[in-house]
């Protein structure tokens, strides 16, 4: 799809950058946790829009259901009972892909074009190109991608890239009854987040803050957290970044040097042979060899 290629800013395992002649507006989804009532409409909407049907599970003794993200559940409400300042808080967080500006999944992926970042900020998987190695799962600082056993490909929230492409909001945003989920340009959503944080602080949530981690160069899904000083209480990593181990492991420079060295070893052998010739036992006849 010619238009599709023009829209891509970054592509996995691709040394040369894509054409990206078309620059679209950067979008973002804002999740205002203070307005979330944990109704799971977003979970249901995501399943509906993407035709996902996981197997019926069992009750595991928790509101968080299913217990984890998986290849058929790209959006999950997570419930945490936390003691904060001597009072019990029931914290509810919508978990899913953060659509990082510097995605760890894209960095780790060895299959060219299997993970792409669009100019609007959406990070998308192209399942056709996926080889099922799971490197993206290790690369992600938020542990989001999930491998589907049946086809050995990874899946995650697409920020409804198909809906966004035709000017609609993601299915989850459309379904949210309290407007805890909002969608718009990234600039707009940052402004709204700042307003919400100010209002929450005015109401007594002294530590309300946005969660838009700089360690991954910011994300296109970010939160307003009433207890912004302790993202861990919501199950979010405190200061996420692409792990330095992943940076070294998938460093293009390190790997380039590695490949060069391997060839250099062979070249050294050839040069040595050209200079010194074979090691031959005296008396052994030279056969028809170079």
């Amino acid at each position, binding site marked *: 799809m010619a238009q599709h290629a023009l829209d891509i800013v970054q592509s996995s395992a691709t040394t040369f950058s894509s054409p990206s002649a078309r620059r679209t507006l950067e979008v973002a989804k804002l999740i205002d946790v203070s307005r979330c009532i944990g109704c799971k409409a977003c979970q249901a909407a995501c399943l509906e829009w993407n035709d996902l049907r996981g197997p*019926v599970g069992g009750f595991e*003794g928790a509101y968080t259901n299913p217990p984890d993200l998986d290849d058929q559940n790209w959006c999950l409400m997570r419930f945490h*009972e936390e003691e904060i300042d001597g009072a019990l808080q029931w914290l509810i967080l919508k978990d899913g892909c953060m659509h990082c500006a510097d995605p760890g999944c894209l960095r780790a992926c060895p299959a060219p074009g299997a993970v792409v970042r669009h100019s609007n900020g959406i990070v998308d998987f192209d399942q056709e190109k996926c080889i099922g190695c799971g490197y993206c799962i290790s690369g992600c600082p938020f542990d989001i991608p999930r491998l589907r056993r049946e086809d050995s490909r990874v899946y995650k929230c697409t920020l409804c890239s198909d809906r966004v492409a035709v000017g609609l909001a993601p299915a989850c945003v459309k379904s949210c009854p309290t407007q805890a989920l909002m969608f718009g340009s990234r600039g707009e959503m940052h402004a709204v987040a700042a307003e919400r944080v100010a209002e929450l602080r005015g109401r007594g949530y002294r530590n309300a803050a946005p969660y838009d981690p700089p360690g991954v160069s910011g994300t296109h899904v970010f939160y307003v957290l009433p207890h912004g000083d302790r993202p861990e209480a919501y199950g979010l990593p405190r200061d996420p970044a692409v792990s330095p181990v992943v940076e070294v492991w998938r460093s293009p420079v390190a790997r380039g040097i590695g490949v060069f060295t391997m060839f250099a070893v062979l070249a050294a052998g050839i040069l040595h042979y050209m200079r010194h010739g074979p090691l031959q036992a005296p008396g052994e006849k030279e056969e028809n060899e170079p």
Partner: protein
Amino acid sequence: MAATAKLAALSDPTRRRVFELVLRRPSPVGRIASALPVSRPAVSQHLRVLLDAGLVTAERQGASRVYRADPRGLAELRGIRSGDMVVVRSRRGRIRLAALVTKRIRPLQVEGNTVHLVGLPLHWGFDGLTRPGHLVNTLTPFVGDPNVETPEFKAFLVDIQKA
């Protein structure tokens, strides 16, 4: 602890106030005494009675002892964790189901007795698209209000044990 012992322990109005303060917030003797027009030794004496009646527990914290109403919820007392299978029994029947343990529902203190709450959502039955399970209506009383013709299915006594 026998109900009479607990009621007797709360017969004294000052002692009742001591208990109410401890209920609201776990406290050492000093803090309770400063909130009441009674001496420290008097408060200590009241606390000893409440301790013997099983209404409060004491915990050593540094140099002082902190008194609190028994904080353990029913789940902890019965060794039930989230996800465990339990049997819930009422006069009318018993059902077997998985438990969810939450701090959001706290035990009530009613006339010196701790009354625990067990919530049973009516989400499943013997027939349905998801896995069938015991019908919660097995436990509910057949009590109705004839004035408004509304059945009272909501609140009833149960016992809950790990299955």
